[in-house]
């Protein structure tokens, strides 16, 4: 178990969300999409040219940018 941010996960890796250090608007949106501390999150893929990330939380696939993913602290399984 090691603490890191969502942005550093490699495709195929799974982690547990520890905390979300985002401004309120982003925080609310992430909550509504199912990002909550304690939830499992899987990195599906990373777009080329430092593009966005595709992650899976519960039954929802979500794309977000790397800057935003860096605000989500996770625990690697």
């Amino acid at each position, binding site marked *: 178990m090691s603490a890191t941010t969502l942005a550093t996960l490699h495709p195929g890796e799974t982690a547990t969300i520890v905390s979300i250090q*985002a401004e*309120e*608007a*982003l925080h*609310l*949106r*992430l*909550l*509504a*999409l*199912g990002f*909550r501390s304690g939830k499992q999150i899987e990195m*599906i*893929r990373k*777009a*080329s*040219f*430092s*593009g*966005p990330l*595709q992650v899976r*939380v*519960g*039954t*929802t*696939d*979500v*794309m*977000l*940018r790397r800057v*935003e993913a860096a605000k989500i602290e996770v625990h690697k399984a």
Partner: protein
Amino acid sequence: MKRIALLGMPNTGKSTLFNRMTGGAARVGNWPGITVELLSGKILLGNEMVEIIDLPGIYDLHGFSDDEQVVRHFLHDNIPDLALVVLNTSQIERQISLLLQLKQLNMNLVVVLNMSDEAKKFGITVDVKKMSGLLELPIFLLSAKYGTGYQEVQHAITKALRYPTPGMAEQLRTQLEQDEHIESEMARVLKHTVQIPARLSDGLTEKLDGVLLHPWLGLPIFFAVMYMVFQGVFLFGQPFQEGIADLLDWFRSVALEPLLGTLPQYMQGLLLDGIYNGVTTVAAFVPIIVLFFLFMAIVEDSGYLSRAAFLMDALMSRLGLDGRGFVMLLMGFGCNVPALMGTRVMRSRAMRLLTMMVIPLSLCSARLQVFIFFTAALFSAKAAPVVLFSLYLFSFTTAIITALIFKNQFKNTEPFVLELPPYRFPTARQMVLRGWLEVRHFLRRATKFIVAGVVVVWLLTNLPSSAVPASADTYAGMIGSALHPFFAPLGINEQLTIALIFGFIAKEIVIGALAVIYSLSGDELGNAIGLQLDWVQAYSFMLFTLLYTPCLATIATLQSESKQLKFTALSLAWSLGLAWVVSFAFYQGARALGY
């Protein structure tokens, strides 16, 4: 009349349900308290007429996005008699939070768990009866797409409407602390009623994504798909456009001209070349808009549009746009009007406006006609493709520069976090409805404006009555000579200036206008222009044509979509200013270099 509001998160099939309920008989309208227009429809339920309003999809009742504020203000100022809450069954574990927030408002609620067909495929089971009991709400499974379960929902709505709405808490913006309560409540309800398999078994979406979002293959496939959509819309559309034009011409010659033949020449001109031509201008857009939205319905409803956003984001985020904006920009190369209408998929207003600033710079097919005529008249067959290509380059470059310049003015403040829904088959019904609703929207919003514009230009180019139409003695000619000091430094003469005034209506008529101005047509016109202008003047004219106001229909659409006169004026001023500066720099630069 009683009001039912449709509420739910994005991607829950809310609009599909709305279309099923209203059968496409919807209208766009304004509501107190909010500035955006909402779709609503009146239907007979039981034995009374009720109005159904499709509210924008929201993630959170307390959120800060444009849509979330719209919904809050709507609910505040137009308390509905019933809120029909639409949840995506496969995502119920997170969407139930919105339901619980709504429940706190103490509204009359009926809940539908939509896309139940998809949930079944995923192996998700919901004990609806138990959930109804726990939440003390009427809850139903539904597939709005295929209609399964719709009868029961309709029945429940009719029943629920009989009771008065309990009234809402005065303070809509409840404290965020209450969300904690919502979280424990969520867990309690879900634990007892929903079963989700440990691993989702949607192998198809995963396999498709493996190819369509492939690190190397993704982008080439994206461009191939876009190419096919583009060809589909504009190649298919052309025969329809020509057919409609022929039909309207035929009607003019067999019915209108004989009928109006007794009127004075002048009235005939105004009615036929002014008003009737305005109508034909509008009609020319109909097949393109229908086809565009038929194809867009496929791209969007299948889930591919959000994949396009994923693929293009690395580049587009630097321009302050997103990948969906890129799709619309590409489509603008066919026709700007549907591309502008298509920006509605972007829910952040700032980003939408920025995209709408950029789209009018796409070299559309109407402008291409002008360029093909001019390059044929002034350049060798070998140089012509290079000239055309350079104009496309100018189009792209000015689009990028425009985005970079206005990116801070229209700063997107909404978090860019998008759902990637599973791939779905759009139904024919959804596609046809979309095309039909969009074309009706365009006709309602733009017709008057376009017809009025065509009439004004007709008057300018035909008054005073003593002047030869489109000559230097008409008002247009006078404007042309008054503007000459502005156009002379660009190498654009007075005759071409009059053609530019015509081009304000539509670029399709520029060549026709030149034919009237020079009293020549076809090759003869080309030869005359070839003798009068050198290539530097012609290229400068083409640059100006590329960049200034695309056409009246584009302006009408900019206004009807932005609902902001200031924005439309800014877009107009920017394109005119840019056209002048670029043509000036080119013309003076080329002359200074000795060309």
